[in-house]
Each structure stands twice: as structure tokens, then as C-alpha cells.
């Protein structure tokens, strides 16, 4: 649990900074720092076990049946990285407090930073490879948010996008690679996979796995040719550059190389690709770094170079090289984070970080200057600092490396890279801090507040101590991590400052001299470099992205040409083709005995057919088509009656009425006829597509109907348990309100949302272009009598009857056909008929129910019924029942399901009324002042309010006028 908490703490803590920023920036920083410190403390609790060589594990089961568990494990290597992430994170948080200005939204910054921290910890602690990829992509996202933190800077946005595309694409490749790896190893657990090295390396899938995993690692760790995103990521605030883009996130690729070392390393392919790429990256980036005038650009390319160095060491595949790699990760993280922070301080205090405009800063900011110089010397690999130790170990490894049968290539290139490294390190010192004090700095530079240089100082102390006292301080930790990487194959190397005059020391000396010479010849070298044309990575990247975007636009434009008919036809054809393809094995009639043909059924069939074809033929006359359509609907509900589905028949019937009313109301505005515009060819084509679809459905359905169930239906359980378990004899209703009540709850919520959407669409009709059209509406011929007396009287007499029928259907629904859905529709119809007969204003003035509230009430009652069963310690929506004897109605089931059904009922009534009443309301706005007076209310009577005839007025009529 502890281990999962280490990972989750930063995620949980990420909500705090935006909340506490109101209390001030110090509180915000302290809160963020406390989260990280707490995670660090939790990690350190595990330290003794890790040092004893144990592997600490935590598992949070999610879908254990599918092998999906949130599993975490901690060994030496994971501990090493987790410690780096949290310790440096703490220093960065302090630094950022003083780096960010008052205008910067600090809460957001710290939230993103913690998000990143959690994701990064997740990578190094995951035991499940899929989980690892999830965290991997989360770091890419966090990095995207942080690079683009200053949203107003275009460089920030472009850099963020580039980083996301490159590392995100790499993450996808990694996912594919790890899935293949898990397939070959037979497990998603990293710990298990690590033990399957032999099997993986012997598998034919080894090379694809290797290439995909390396694509992920190389993009993340900015290896050539994917190195270009990292310098552009430097648009981020400096704390981000120091933390993500030098100390931790870009090392995730290196972590992966180390983590999978026991499985993937040790082959010729690994050696050639990984060490070759690393060496090339190391040399190219170091050369470019010399000439970068932007201090952060210089440090960015130097970071790429050092990442290449570690990659190369992992690529060599020997235990001692792996140990050197781990040690250099530690050293690089310390001196590079420190250097980035000093670059940030220079930028902050001098107002620029362009090396050409700086110089002499050591006199003006002695503390920062001294710290920067020490860290630079470590980067150059000068004795006795920590950079020297790992560089010596690197050269020692390289000097006897034979790559592709060449003995000299590696040593020469490594020495060249090391000399470039010396050159840019010294340039950072000489061109920025040494030399004469200038008088044209944008700001007057001075040392920053202690909060800004103290984190740097802590790191610089580490840089010195790791050099002088390497063995007592870091020896055990590095050996522990290296042992975890190499599965015990790393030699027990003791970290030593002085090995005597070895070939590596000589090489190192040569490199230092060469580097100093290069710096002395900086100006001519820079001119030489400027005269050569170089490929511009950013332009190439943007051209590629543009080309892909254009191709995608063309491809989708070809299918999606904004002409709906053509798109629908294509989609249908595609479905048909897929259906033909899957059905090519043959779909035919089965053995199930059929029902005998009944004459009445044939008659109904013929009626439906004629009606349907008539609609297709005369669809341009809309009113006719609508009425004939409702005939088809009636036959459908008769079909349900015929085949033992009384509930469906009732539902279909009432829905049919409501739908027809709805479409009639809509036809009030829409043109009464469709123009004849499709060519005969188009109609023929459509008829062909339609016939094919119909034929396919027929064949499929006939095959189903004549085949017996392949598996026993689960309905036997529903039938058997309906009465004893659900307390009702109408199994369909019991399924709806009990067995599958959860589905029904979801359904009424969907229905409610649809009604609200309809309300929103209609309500805004009174604004904008639609309102203009409504105002200038030209009316067709009006009916002479808009509210026929017969209809008005009949509907008003029917209303109480219909309501009673609704209640009856509702109450008996649990045992006999009926229930909330049907009762709701019946009541809805009864009410809507009043609107039709007597006009919207008349009906509205007499309705005291808010339909929105009715929908809300329905959903609330249904949910509360479900929640109620929690009070009795039962699962959601468990029902219980008893009996109640009502006079006249008979014995009534009083199940809790009845309350649930009441919720369904209310929602359905609310939905039907909200939709239809609002459509009618739009009509009422458009209708001209009635000439014949609304309904019969214009005649004063003893029971009806006299002045209620204000069909246009929304206000209730004055009583007893």
C-alpha cells in the first residue's frame, strides 16, 4: 500500500496548489513541498528493505481475471530513480517559488509539476507494463502542459506541441513493443518478464520488440534523430527545464533501457543500435552545444549529449558499463539541474541569457557565479568533481570497445565528444561569468534571494562530495541500482577518484586540452560552422506535420464532402460489404419448426407492405406520408400482440400516438411537400441500396428465426424468480424495474436529457435568425374553427377517464401488462390532447406542474429507491415487497419497485409534456390573433372563467370574472 501511496500522493496533492494559492505564494509552495516531502519520507521507509536486497511489492487489483492489476514494485534501480525524482523535485519547488513572478499563476504551475512527479514515479515503480505506458504518456502530457505554461509565448506553444507529438508517438510505439514483449514473455508483470530474457531474445519477435521499445526510449530521451524536440522544449520556465528536461523526464528513456536491460541487452542488434545511436547523439549534440548562444540552448544540447553518453553505456551491454551508466545518471542530474538553475538566475537578474551579451558576471553575482563555475567544471569532467569519475569510467569502457570490427571508432569519437563537452562547459564559464564587467546588461545583475541560490548550492555540494567521497556516499546506492539493472552481473566496482595514470586518464587529458583549444578558436570555428548549410530540424518537422495534416484532410474530404446523402449511402454500402464479408461462410435457414401461416397475419403483412411502399412512393406529400406511417406503426403493435408481447403492443401504440402528434406539430412549419429534385438515376441507386439492405436484414432474420438458441437463455431464471424474487407476475415489468433496474434508471436519465436538449433547442428559437423567420411567417389557410367544440368537449370529458386508466395501468403493471412507461405515455397523451383541442395558452394556464421539475422528480425517486436498499445493507436497487388490498382495484403489489416505477412514470410524463408543450408553445407564438376566439371559453359560463380566452396571454385567468 505504501508504495502505491508514494505514486498516488503527488496526484492527490496536485489538487491542493490551485486551492491554497489564495492564501499566498509561500503557503502554496510549502503545501506543494510538503506533498513531495511526504512521498519522499514514505519512500525512505522502504529503504532498509531495498538495501537488504528485497523487492518491495504492492498490488491493487482492478480486473485480476484479465491480468489487470495496479502493481508496483521497488528494487534498487527503481529506488535510485524515485529518490532522484523526489529529492530534486523538492529543490525545484523551492527554486520555482522565487523564480515565478507575481503575474504567473503559481497554483497551476505546482499542480502540473506534481502531476508530472506522480507520473514519473509511476514509470519507475510500475510492475505492470501497461501501467508503465500509461504513466509514460502522462509524463508526456504533463511535459506538454509545462512547456506551454506561458500560454502567451508562441515558442512555448510550438515547443509544447512538438514535444507532445514526438514523445507521444514514441509512447505509442513503446506500447506496441511492450504488448509484444508481454505476449512473448507470457505475462504483463515486469518482474516476471525480467526473468524471461532467454526466451525473449530467442523469439522471432525480438527485433520488432527491440525496435519499438527503442523508438519509445529514444524519443523520450531525445536521441538522434529525435533529439530536436528537447531544445525547443526550453521555452518552458527554467524550473521545468531543470526538472523535466534534464534531471528526470528525459531520463525515462534511459530508465527503460536499464529496466529492460536483462531482457533485451546482450545481443548484437542491441549493441550496434543502442551504443551506435548513443555515441552519435553524444558527439553531434556536444558539437552543436558549443555554438549555442542561448544559455538554455547550450545546456539543452549538452543534456542531449549526456543522454547519448548514458545510452551508449547501456548499449555496450557489459555490467561495468551499466554501472557507469547508473552513476552518470546521478552525476548528470546533480550538475545539470544546478546549471539550469544558474542559467535561470542569470536570465532573471541580468535580463538576458544570450551569451554574447553577457560576461563578467562573477564580480556582480559572486555566489551564483561560483556555484555555476563548479557545476560547469563537473560537466567538463574536471578532477575532483563527480563528472570526472563517470567520464573516466566511460572512457575506460570505450577504449576497449570494438564496434562493427573497428577498434578506433569508439575511442576517437568518444574523445572528440568529450573535448566538445569541455569546450561548451568552459564557454559557459568564460563567456558568461569571466571577462570584464559590461555596462549594457538589460538589468543590473546581482545575486538573487537565498531561496533561489540555496537549491543550487545544495546540488553543488553534492557535486563536490560525490567527487571526493564518491564511495562512502553513493557507492552502495549505485551498486544496488546497477545490480538491479544487470540482475547481479555488475562487478562490485568501488568508486574511486584516482586510479593512477591509466589510458582513460590520458584520453581525458587530451580531451581537456583539445576542448580548451577549441574554445580559444571559438570565433573562427563559429564562422566556419555558420558558412555550412545545416538541416533545420524544426522546419523539417513542421513540413512533415503539415504534409500529414494535408493528406488527412484530403482523405477525409474525399469521403466527407458535406453532402449528407452521399455520406449516408457510402456508410450503408460499407456496412453491407462488411456484412457480406462476415456472412460469406453462408447464412441459411435452420431446423427450428416454424409456426403455421394464419390468414389474418397474411392480411396484416400485406397491409404493412402496401403502407410502407406507399410511404416510399408518396413521401413528398408529407401529411399523407405521416398518416400512412402511423398505420405501419399500428400494424407493428398488432404484431406484438400476436406474438405474445402485450406490454410492447401497449407501448408501441402509445408511442405511436405521441410521435404522430409530435410530427404533426413539426409539419406545422415545415413545407408541406418535398420538391422533386432527385434524378431518376439517384432514386434508382438509392432504391438499390435500400433493397440490398432490406434483403440482408430479411435473410439474417430468417436464419435467426429458424434456428434454435445456441445456448440456454437466461430468461428461465427471470421467469422462475419473477414472482418469488421480484414479487410480480409480469416478467417484462419485473425485469425492467428489478432485474435490470439499473438499465432502466440509465434509460430514463437519457430520456430526461434528450427532453432537456429539445427544450434548449426550442427555447432559443425566439432569438436570432430563427426568431426573425418566425416573425415574418406567412401562414397558409387557417381552419375556420380552430378549436372545434366537439373535440374540446370530448377531450375534457375524457381527461379524468384517461387519467384513471393511466393510474390503473400503472398500478397493475407489476402483475399484468402495463407499468410506468405505458402509464406515463397514456397520461401524456391524455394531457397533450387538451393542448391540441383547447390551445396552448388555455392548457398552460391550467397546468400547475413544472415539467422540468417532474423529470427531475422522476429521476430522483428512481435513484432514491435504489439508494434506499443501501439502508438495509443490500446492493443498489434491491427490491422488497408486500401486499396491500385496495377497494375496487383489488390486491395491489406494494413492492419498492413500485416507487421505482413511479420514477419512471413521472419522467416519461415529464418528457412527453415538455417536448410537445414546447413545440406547441412555439406555434402559439406564431399563430395570429384568433378570429374565432379560443375554444369555447370565450362564451362566459358558470364553470369556466370568462376572460380565459386570452390565447396569447400566459397569465392565469382571473377567477370568477
Amino acid at each position, binding site marked *: 500500500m505504501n508504495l502505491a501511496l508514494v505514486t498516488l500522493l503527488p496526484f492527490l496533492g496536485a489538487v491542493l496548489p490551485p486551492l491554497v494559492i489564495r492564501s499566498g505564494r509561500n503557503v502554496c509552495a510549502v503545501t506543494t513541498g510538503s506533498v513531495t516531502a511526504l512521498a519522499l519520507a514514505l519512500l525512505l521507509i522502504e529503504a532498509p528493505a531495498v538495501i537488504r536486497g528485497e523487492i518491495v511489492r504492492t498490488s491493487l487489483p482492478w480486473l485480476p481475471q484479465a491480468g489487470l492489476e495496479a502493481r508496483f514494485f521497488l528494487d534498487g534501480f527503481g529506488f535510485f530513480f524515485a529518490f532522484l525524482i523526489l529529492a530534486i523535485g523538492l529543490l525545484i519547488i523551492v527554486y520555482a517559488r522565487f523564480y515565478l513572478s507575481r503575474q504567473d499563476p503559481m497554483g497551476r504551475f505546482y499542480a502540473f509539476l506534481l502531476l508530472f512527479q506522480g507520473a514519473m514515479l509511476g514509470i519507475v515503480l510500475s510492475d505492470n507494463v501497461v501501467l508503465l505506458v500509461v504513466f509514460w504518456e502522462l509524463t508526456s502530457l504533463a511535459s506538454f502542459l509545462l512547456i506551454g505554461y506561458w500560454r502567451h509565448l508562441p515558442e512555448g506553444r510550438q515547443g509544447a506541441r512538438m514535444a507532445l507529438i514526438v514523445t507521444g508517438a514514441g509512447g505509442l510505439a513503446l506500447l506496441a513493443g511492450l504488448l509484444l514483449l508481454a505476449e512473448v514473455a507470457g505475462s504483463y508483470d515486469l518482474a516476471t518478464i525480467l526473468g524471461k530474457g532467454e526466451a525473449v531474445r530467442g523469439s522471432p519477435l525480438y527485433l520488432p520488440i527491440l525496435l519499438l521499445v527503442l523508438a519509445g526510449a529514444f524519443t523520450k530521451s531525445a536521441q538522434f534523430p529525435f533529439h530536436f524536440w528537447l531544445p525547443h522544449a526550453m521555452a518552458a520556465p527554467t524550473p521545468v527545464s531543470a526538472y523535466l528536461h534534464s534531471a528526470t523526464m528525459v531520463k525515462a528513456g534511459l530508465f527503460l533501457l536499464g529496466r529492460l536491460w536483462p531482457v533485451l541487452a546482450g545481443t548484437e542488434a542491441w549493441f550496434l543500435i543502442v551504443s551506435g545511436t548513443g555515441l552519435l547523439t553524444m558527439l553531434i549534440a556536444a558539437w552543436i552545444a558549443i555554438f549555442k548562444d542561448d544559455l538554455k540552448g547550450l545546456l539543452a544540447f549538452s543534456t542531449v549529449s549526456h543522454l547519448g553518453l548514458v545510452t551508449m553505456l547501456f548499449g555496450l551491454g557489459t555490467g561495468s558499463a551499466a554501472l557507469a551508466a547508473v552513476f552518470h545518471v546521478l552525476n548528470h542530474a546533480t550538475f545539470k539541474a544546478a546549471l539550469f538553475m544558474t542559467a535561470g538566475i542569470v536570465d532573471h537578474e541580468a535580463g538576458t541569457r544570450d551569451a554574447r551579451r553577457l560576461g563578467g558576471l562573477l564580480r556582480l553575482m559572486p555566489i551564483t557565479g561560483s556555484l555555476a563555475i563548479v557545476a560547469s567544471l563537473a560537466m567538463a569532467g574536471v578532477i575532483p568533481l563527480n563528472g570526472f569519475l563517470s567520464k573516466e569510467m566511460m572512457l575506460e569502457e570505450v577504449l576497449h570497445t570494438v564496434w562493427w570490427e573497428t577498434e578506433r571508432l569508439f575511442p576517437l569519437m568518444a574523445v572528440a565528444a568529450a573535448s566538445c563537452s569541455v569546450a561548451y562547459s568552459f564557454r559557459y564559464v568564460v563567456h558568461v561569468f569571466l571577462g570584464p564587467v559590461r555596462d549594457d546588461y538589460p538589468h543590473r545583475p546581482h545575486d538573487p534571494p537565498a531561496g533561489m541560490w540555496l537549491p543550487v548550492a545544495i546540488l553543488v555540494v553534492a557535486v563536490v562530495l560525490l567527487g571526493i567521497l564518491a564511495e562512502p556516499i553513493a557507492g552502495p546506492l549505485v551498486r544496488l541500482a546497477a545490480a538491479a539493472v544487470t540482475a547481479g552481473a555488475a562487478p562490485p566496482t568501488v568508486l574511486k577518484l584516482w586510479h593512477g595514470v591509466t589510458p582513460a586518464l590520458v584520453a581525458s587529458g587530451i580531451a581537456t586540452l583539445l576542448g580548451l583549444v577549441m574554445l580559444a578558436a571559438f570565433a573562427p570555428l563559429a564562422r566556419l560552422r555558420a558558412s555550412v548549410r545545416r538541416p533545420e530540424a524544426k522546419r523539417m518537422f513542421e513540413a512533415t506535420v503539415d504534409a500529414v495534416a494535408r493528406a488527412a484532410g484530403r482523405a477525409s474530404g474525399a469521403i466527407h464532402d*458535406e453532402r*449528407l*446523402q452521399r455520406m449516408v*449511402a457510402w456508410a450503408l454500402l460499407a456496412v453491407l460489404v462488411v456484412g457480406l464479408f462476415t456472412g460469406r461462410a453462408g447464412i441459411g435457414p435452420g431446423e427450428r419448426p*416454424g*409456426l403455421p401461416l394464419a390468414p389474418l397475419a*397474411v392480411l396484416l*403483412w400485406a397491409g*404493412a*407492405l402496401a403502407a410502407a411502399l406507399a410511404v416510399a412512393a408518396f413521401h413528398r406529400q*408529407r401529411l399523407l406520408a*405521416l398518416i400512412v*406511417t402511423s398505420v405501419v406503426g399500428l400494424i*407493428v403493435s398488432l*404484431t406484438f400482440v400476436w406474438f*405474445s*408481447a*402485450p406490454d*410492447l403492443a401497449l407501448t408501441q401504440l402509445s*408511442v405511436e400516438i*405521441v*410521435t404522430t402528434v*409530435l*410530427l404533426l406539430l*413539426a409539419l406545422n*412549419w*415545415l*413545407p408541406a411537400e*418535398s420538391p422533386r429534385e*432527385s434524378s431518376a438515376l439517384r432514386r434508382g441507386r*438509392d*432504391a438499390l*441500396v*435500400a433493397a440490398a*439492405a*432490406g434483403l440482408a*436484414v430479411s435473410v439474417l*432474420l*430468417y436464419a435467426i*428465426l429458424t434456428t434454435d438458441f445456441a445456448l440456454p*437463455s437466461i*430468461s428461465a431464471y427471470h*421467469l422462475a424468480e*419473477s414472482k418469488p424474487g421480484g414479487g410480480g407476475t409480469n*416478467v417484462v415489468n419485473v425485469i425492467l424495474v428489478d432485474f435490470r433496474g439499473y438499465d*432502466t434508471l440509465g*434509460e430514463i436519465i437519457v*430520456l430526461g436529457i*434528450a*427532453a432537456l436538449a*429539445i427544450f434548449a433547442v426550442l427555447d432559443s428559437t425566439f432569438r436570432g*435568425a*430563427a426568431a426573425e*423567420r*418566425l416573425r415574418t411567417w406567412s401562414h397558409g389557410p387557417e381552419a375556420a374553427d380552430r378549436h372545434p367544440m366537439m373535440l374540446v368537449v370530448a377531450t375534457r370529458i375524457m381527461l379524468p377517464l384517461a387519467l384513471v386508466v393511466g393510474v390503473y395501468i400503472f398500478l397493475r403493471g407489476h402483475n399484468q*401488462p402495463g407499468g410506468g*412507461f405505458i402509464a406515463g*405515455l397514456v397520461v401524456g397523451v391524455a394531457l397533450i390532447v387538451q393542448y391540441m383541442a383547447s390551445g396552448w395558452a388555455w392548457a398552460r394556464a391550467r397546468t400547475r406542474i413544472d415539467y422540468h421539475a417532474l423529470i427531475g422528480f422522476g429521476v430522483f425517486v428512481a435513484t432514491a429507491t435504489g439508494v434506499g436498499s443501501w439502508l438495509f445493507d443490500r446492493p443498489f436497487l434491491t427490491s422488497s415487497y408486500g401486499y396491500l388490498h385496495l377497494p375496487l382495484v383489488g390486491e395491489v403489489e406494494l413492492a419498492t419497485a413500485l416507487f421505482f416505477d413511479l420514477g419512471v412514470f413521472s419522467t*416519461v410524463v415529464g*418528457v412527453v409534456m415538455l417536448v410537445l408543450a414546447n413545440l406547441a408553445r412555439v406555434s402559439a407564438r406564431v399563430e395570429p390573433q384568433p378570429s374565432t376566439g379560443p375554444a369555447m371559453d370565450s362564451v362566459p359560463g358558470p364553470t369556466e372563467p370568462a376572460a380565459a380566452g386570452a390565447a396569447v396571454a400566459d397569465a392565469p385567468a382571473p377567477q370568477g370574472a
Partner: protein
Amino acid sequence: MELLFASGVGVLTAVGVYLCLRARTFPVVLGLSFLSYAVNLFLFASGRLVVARPPIVGPAAPGYTDPLPQALVLTAIVISFGMTALVVVLALRGFLEAGTDHVDGREPDREGRS
């Protein structure tokens, strides 16, 4: 009887598809209604066709048809209503907003391109 049922559903599907391919919104709405009929009948029929065996439990009942597809289709019918209502209101609003009820939201030009 099975053949009758299957062919009937097929015709409803065909008419629905044909109407959905029309150029004006109202026929498309009707087409969706037809497709709803067809789909609901199809789903219902996955419980096979049974006569005079309603799923109402009782001592005298000779047997029952499969109640589960019925329950599913019952909710499907109500949801179809919700969908039809939303589509027709959108069509209406689109017509009021754009001044045309062509499915592309603009009147076709002379070459028949919309």
C-alpha cells in the same frame, strides 16, 4: 410465418433506408421511424416467434415466451421516441435557422450539388 415476419422486417428496413437517403429532413425523420420499427422488431424476434404465451406468470399458463428481448425492446421503443423527438426538433430548428429543409443545410445549386 417466420418467412412472413422476416420479409416484412426487410421491407420496413428497405423503406427506412430509402427515406433516409432523401434530400429533405422530414422524409429522413420518417425513415428513422421506419428503421426504428424494423430494429425493434428484429431485436424482439431474437426471442423467436411464439404465439399465445405471454410472459405473465400464472398457474394456468401453458408456457412463456422469452421475456428478456421484450424488456429490452420496450425501453428501445421509448428511447426511439426520444430520438425521433430530438431529430425532428433539430430538423425544425435547422429549417428556421437556415431557411431550407435540405439535409445539407443549404439549397442545392444547379448541377445538383448541394
